[in-house]
């Protein structure tokens, strides 16, 4: 395509030439010179060259172009040229023999037909009938057209020669009315065709249009001259003819340019388009309707010319509803300014390679709902004017996806705890506000921070994908957890403020230490107390015995009784000290957890108590006992204590009965030891398990009330409970429960 300056020069040159011719015609008309220079030979030669030859060449080229691209207009052009050329030839040939009238008739009628052809070629019909025919079929059309054309020419000739037409021209007078009408039509047709093409040319700037318009203009000028002339062969006549010669040459140039344009397109595209257009089902509509985006073709004013199927789906307007409406009014209300600006700037672009304009807009659908769309427009100048192809892509999903991403992105961003991402060299590529605020040193030192390098080294060595460490920063403690993400080859660091936890831990450690030292002190105390208490006890007991041995005779019964009391108390105190020691020793021992056969435990307890029981008759009933997990030594002590109590408190009865049993409850086992001894008052039941608590006097039953509190202590350490039921003189039942942990026995 020629550049703008080129075009202007051409414009000026052509315009000047055409105007000159026009001026010449007008002058000659006014001047009315009747001199004639008729020379039939010259006329024939000139006609033959400038009209016939040129026209025929034009026709051939037009046919070639038509075969290539199948536009009807070129076929019409070819036909017109052939008619024009042939009638001109005939006119020239028969000027000598038949006088001016017959040739003029032939020529004028031929011109009229040619004019029809030319105006057809640029009409709507000529351009949109983009045929689906293949080259071979086109050749058929060409042949048919040419035959018809030939027939027409022959008809014109014969009719003219036989004077079947009324006379057209009277030498010396001028045109007859019939000629005036015919020529008038010719002028109008050629002239209006020229004007249309000029308008086309002004819009598209194509060379073809320029030369075609120029050609037609000159030819029209020529016919104006012919119309006004009175004498054939006058100067006016010659100038008119000359105009026509020039015009014809321009037409030749126009079709040559077309052929060149058509030939210069890439062969591949041509072949592809050719094969595609063979397929009857395939046409541009298929391309439009299979596109997943909405497509609207709009004209210069923004009215919709085409509306594809996806556009129907997206916006709810059918093709019939959409075509003819303004795009803005239909789906982009309130956005006229934006669209108009786009249209204007689009249309301002010159040249073939236009750049499309893309923007995000909100479209309104038929049902009133809105839809975010990406609006993209690319314009092109066609022979029918500027057209814009608007692609409307639905952005709803993308917007939703973007919203989702933003939402997900907010998770680390809004997290008050530090979240950091590092690349595989240890540089920080993301740090959330929490990190910037609370771990500033980490951020500034970045990969050089010792903590980071240590942790990353450990993770990188492959042993683990994850590492955590508790680190103190200023006055706060942070739990750092570092992950390696193999897929992205990045590290992620999550930190958590655990200051509160650390403080609690420290407190716990301190209180534990305190407890331990207190316990140690208590142990030492207990130990020394028990030993230091024993020595005097030994003395009391010993010397009381000595007195009772050595001075027995000297004492009366009272005296001996007093000594007995002294000795009994001494041994009681010894027992108390032993029990106290045993009681305190309980807390020192580590408790074991082993599976225990309670039945065997009861057996072994009875064996221990054999010395006590062998002098008495006791009925003992042992029910099968469920297994439990616990400390065997401690639980044996429990059983021994309970059995020994049962034995002790039934010793007044002759029909002493002791029953032992156990059951499995939902999450614990419950065992009991029941006797029919002296029992106790239920209202004092809670006192039973207190240290040194007794519900009977020393006279009734020996003992110092530590046995049950030992039982209570041991069972508590197992996580269980103790309780008792009793009735005065009817016996007592001591229950204890031990929770089962995890096993399902």
């Amino acid at each position, binding site marked *: 395509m020629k550049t703008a300056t080129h075009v202007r020069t051409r414009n000026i040159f052509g315009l000047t030439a055409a105007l000159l011719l026009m001026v010449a015609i007008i002058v000659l008309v006014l001047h009315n010179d009747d001199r004639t220079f008729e020379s039939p030979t010259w006329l024939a030669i000139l006609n033959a060259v400038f009209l016939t030859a040129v026209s025929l060449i034009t026709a051939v080229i037009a046919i070639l172009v038509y075969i290539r691209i199948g536009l009807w207009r070129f076929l019409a052009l070819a036909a017109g040229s052939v008619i024009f050329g042939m009638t001109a030839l005939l006119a020239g040939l028969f000027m000598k023999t038949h006088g001016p009238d017959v040739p003029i008739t032939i020529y004028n009628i031929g011109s009229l037909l040619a004019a029809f052809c030319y105006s057809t070629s640029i009409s709507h019909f000529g351009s949109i009938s983009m045929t689906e025919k293949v080259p071979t079929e086109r050749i058929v059309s060409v042949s048919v057209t040419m035959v018809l054309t030939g027939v027409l020419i022959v008809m014109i000739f014969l009719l003219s020669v036989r004077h079947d037409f009324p006379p057209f021209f009277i030498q010396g007078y001028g045109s007859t009315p019939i000629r005036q009408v015919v020529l008038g039509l010719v002028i109008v047709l050629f002239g209006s065709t020229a004007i249309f093409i000029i308008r086309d040319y002004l819009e598209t700037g194509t060379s073809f249009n320029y030369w075609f318009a120029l050609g037609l203009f000159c030819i029209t000028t020529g016919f104006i001259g012919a119309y006004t002339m009175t004498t054939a062969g006058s100067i006016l006549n010659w100038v008119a003819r000359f105009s026509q010669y020039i015009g014809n040459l321009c037409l030749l140039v126009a079709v040559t340019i077309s052929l060149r344009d058509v030939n210069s397109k890439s062969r591949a595209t041509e072949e592809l388009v050719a094969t595609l257009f063979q397929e009857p089902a395939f046409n541009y509509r298929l391309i439009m309707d299979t596109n997943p985006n909405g497509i609207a073709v709009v004209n210069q004013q923004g009215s919709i010319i085409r509306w594809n199927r996806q556009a129907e789906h997206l916006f709810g307007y059918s093709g019939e509803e959409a075509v003819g409406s303004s795009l803005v009014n239909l789906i982009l209300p309130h956005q006229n300014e934006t669209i108009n600006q786009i249209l204007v700037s689009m249309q301002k672009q010159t040249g073939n390679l236009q750049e499309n304009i893309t923007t995000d807009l909100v479209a309104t659908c038929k049902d009133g709902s809105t839809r975010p769309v990406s609006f993209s427009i690319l314009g092109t100048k066609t022979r029918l004017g500027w057209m814009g192809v608007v692609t409307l892509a639905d952005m709803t999903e993308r917007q939703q996806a973007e919203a989702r991403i933003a939402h997900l992105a907010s998770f680390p961003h809004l997290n008050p705890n530090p979240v950091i991402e590092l690349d595989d060299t240890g540089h920080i590529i993301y740090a959330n506000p929490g990190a910037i605020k609370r771990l500033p040193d980490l951020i500034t030192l970045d990969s050089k921070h010792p903590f980071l390098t240590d942790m990353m080294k450990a993770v990188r060595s492959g042993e683990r994908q994850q590492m955590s460490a508790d680190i103190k920063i200023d006055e706060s403690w942070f739990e750092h957890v570092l992950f390696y993400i193999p897929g992205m080859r990045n590290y992620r660091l999550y930190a958590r403020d655990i200051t509160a936890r650390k403080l609690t831990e420290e407190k716990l450690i301190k209180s534990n230490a305190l407890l331990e030292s207190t316990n140690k002190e208590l142990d030492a105390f207990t130990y020394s107390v028990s030993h230091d208490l024993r020595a*005097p006890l*030994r*003395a009391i*007991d*010993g*010397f009381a*015995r*000595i007195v009772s041995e050595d001075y027995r005779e000297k004492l009366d019964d009272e005296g001996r009784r007093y000594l007995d009391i002294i000795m009994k108390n001494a041994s009681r105190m010894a027992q108390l000290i032993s029990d106290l020691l045993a009681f305190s020793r309980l807390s020192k021992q580590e408790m074991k957890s082993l599976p225990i056969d309670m039945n065997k435990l009861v057996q072994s307890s009875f064996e221990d108590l054999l010395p006590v029981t062998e002098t008495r008759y006791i009925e003992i009933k042992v029910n099968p006992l469920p297994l439990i997990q616990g400390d065997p030594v401690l639980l044996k002590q429990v059983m021994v204590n309970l059995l020994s109590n049962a034995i002790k408190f039934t010793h007044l009865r002759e029909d002493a009965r002791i029953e032992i049993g156990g059951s499995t409850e939902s999450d614990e086992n419950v065992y009991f030891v029941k006797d029919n001894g002296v029992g106790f008052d239920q209202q004092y039941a809670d006192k039973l398990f207190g240290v040194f608590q007794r519900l009977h006097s020393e006279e009734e039953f020996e003992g110092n009330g530590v046995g049950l509190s030992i039982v209570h202590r041991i069972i508590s350490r197992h996580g269980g409970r103790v309780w008792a039921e009793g009735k005065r003189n009817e016996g007592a039942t001591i229950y204890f429960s031990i929770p089962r942990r995890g096993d399902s026995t």
Partner: protein
Amino acid sequence: MNEDEIEILLVEDTLSDAELTIRALKKRNLANKLVHVKDGEEALNYLFGEGHCSASVILNRPRLVLLDLKLPKVDGFEILRRLKADQLGQFIPVVVLTSSAEERDIVQSYKLGVNSYITKPVDFEKFIDAVSSLGLYWLLLNKAPR
């Protein structure tokens, strides 16, 4: 000092315990030649002489030493150690007679080479039995180098 050979050295700070022990031994006629010292210092003086030092050689060699552990001034372990370190003293049987039943005391005593360890029973009868038994055993039954 008796001219007769002293048979028993009783190292005991609790007087009542000492009296009971002597009474028990007397019953078996074992207390004729018995010396009772009341603290560790006195014990060392008796065994190694007045003004003894760590290098002193044993002076008096009783046939049996009954040793309490909790003694004022010098405790039982020290006396045990000194005795067992002496060339001649090491052959004297030492019986620890103490109220402690602690494992650690027992271990320590045996480490130092004690011959026997008895815990004093609280019960008087049992105490008498224990003392008589040990006296009979160590003085009459057991043989020691001269």
